[in-house]
């Protein structure tokens, strides 16, 4: 678990930087880095050795970064798209035909009929006063006729609104359905991408193991194979299938000054030396952690030894300079020059009892 956290932290850091940088450009850049990291790996896998294992590790890290960056970008894009397409989900606004009394036209027509009848009644009356009233009624009739025209014109615009709103609704429903399908396809793509990331990690891990299978000491040395196009017979299988090259453990290792990866108490400085003699390992670790509550002596120093096993994780017994015993695990990191260290000691009051961090080869 701890190891997973530490290794994924490396990829996550790179991803966070890339996602923070740009959108599509970031994942395309990560893709280019990955493609460069894995160039000719499969071609050389048939004849390669330690350098191809390291390349597989680098490719796995680059693939993880690419997949994480791309997935983050697509997830963000999916949310953004869903947000802005909300517009298509609600009916468009229109004016209600009920805002105007339906009897408006009838009322005006009725007034027109009344005033017209009165005008006709006074048509033959020569009395000047009656004629004056008749003229005022005539003006009223003209006003009503004009009013009825505008009422009819307005009623036409209401019909126009109804037609336009119906057209709009039909188009909106159709468009919303098309974009729903788009959103669904986008979500499907994101789900597919999420499956690809772990698949690539698994692939590179198996590829590295397969390459190491032949790299282990063989019963008889295989004839050198010059180039991949020269197809050789099946490579001899090694009895110690799965063994990690000793070079992944042996050597001098140090804790990086900046951006160190750790779990638990933060280290300040660490120096690890591992040597091998006839399959037997030995070494020393000297270092110092940041002071924490209950730890007055943050310095750690111990020696360890034991036999190398066929498993990737090497576990040895250790003894501190004050005679306390414990165990140390050495785990090859995601890149060839990285080694994870995980140690635990017996009871040491006020002193560091365990540590977990990644070292870089000197």
């Amino acid at each position: 678990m701890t190891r997973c956290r530490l290794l994924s932290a490396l990829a996550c850091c790179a991803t966070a930087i890339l996602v923070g940088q740009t959108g599509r450009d970031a994942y395309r850049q990560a893709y280019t880095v990955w493609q460069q990291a894995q160039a000719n790996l499969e071609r050389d896998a048939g004849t390669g050795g330690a350098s191809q294992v390291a390349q597989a590790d680098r490719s796995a890290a680059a693939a993880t970064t690419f997949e994480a960056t791309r997935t983050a970008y697509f997830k963000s894009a999916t949310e953004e798209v869903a947000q802005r397409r909300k517009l298509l989900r609600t009916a468009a606004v229109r004016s209600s035909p009920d805002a105007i009394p339906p009897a408006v036209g009838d009322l005006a027509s009725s007034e027109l009929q009344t005033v017209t009848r009165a005008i006709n009644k006074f048509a033959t009356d020569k009395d000047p006063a009656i004629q004056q009233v008749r003229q005022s009624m005539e003006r009223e009739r003209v006003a009503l006729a004009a009013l009825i025209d505008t009422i009819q014109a307005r009623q036409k615009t209401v019909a126009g609104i109804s037609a336009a709103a119906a057209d709009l609704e039909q188009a909106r429903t159709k468009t919303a359905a098309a974009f729903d399908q788009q959103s669904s396809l986008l979500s499907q793509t994101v789900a597919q991408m999420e499956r690809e990331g772990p698949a690539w990690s698994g692939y590179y891990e198996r590829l590295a193991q397969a390459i190491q299978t032949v790299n282990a000491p063989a019963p008889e040395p295989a004839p050198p194979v010059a180039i991949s196009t020269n197809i050789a017979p099946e490579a001899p299988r090694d009895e110690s299938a799965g063994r990690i090259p000793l070079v992944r453990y042996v050597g001098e290792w140090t804790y990086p000054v900046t951006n160190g990866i750790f779990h638990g108490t933060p280290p300040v400085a660490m120096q690890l030396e591992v040597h091998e003699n006839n399959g037997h390992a030995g070494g020393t670790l000297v270092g110092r952690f940041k002071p924490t509550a209950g730890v007055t002596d943050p310095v750690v120093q111990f020696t360890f030894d034991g036999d190398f096993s066929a498993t990737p994780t090497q576990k040895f017994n250790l003894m501190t300079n004050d005679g306390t015993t414990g165990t140390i695990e050495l785990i090859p990191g995601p890149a060839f020059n990285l080694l994870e260290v995980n140690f635990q000691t017996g009871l040491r009051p006020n002193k560091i009892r365990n540590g977990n961090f990644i070292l870089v080869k000197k």
Partner: protein
Amino acid sequence: MKCGLGGVPTVAFLCAALFSCAAVRAQDGPDLAALEQTAQKRGLEWEALAKDMNDRVARILPCDPRALAAVNEVSQASEARLAALADYLRAVSSQAFAETAAARNLLSAEEKRAVEASLERADAGQEQTAVDTQSDALALSVKQRTSLEVPQKLLGQIAEMIRQRATSTEQQAAGADAAVALLRDLVAKFEARDVALREEFAASEAERARWNGYYAARRARAQIECSITQIGATRRQGKQ
């Protein structure tokens, strides 16, 4: 400002905020239901007064102040109705224009998204080619090292995943163009709706002016009816 998906997250955030603002503005406008209700209420009030105006005035003597008051009361109710209607139609137009603006923004963003979709299709194609190349190279290497059969199988599965995704992106890119065409048509419909609303508002305002003109003529008639009655009475008094 770039609102496409390829922009920096800050720009994408700003674009999302603008979309939200447009949506919020559209939602936070005047309460259309309340305005419509007011317009309906004023309409009913006017209708009740207007339909029996002539009957009421007919039962009042020409110079009785209640005659002119009755006409004025209907005229004022008419103006109140038409003012409430104008408020409602103005609010509808305002909200409609905000919707149309949001639809135009959506079209612009979706056009960029369609371009992105076609780029993603190209990317998937490129990835498919790359994994096929890897598969071919690994197939040759397997002949030299049989332990590579397991990763070869895994690579085959990955190639199949990428093929499926490439198919999805293909459908997406093809669908994106069609969806954008529909959206473009939808924006045109939004604009047509806005034109129709503008026409309705203009017609309503013209009708408002005509109603006012009619009631002015009606008031004028009431005043003439009173004035000729008074002239008649004066003449009769003069003769006596």
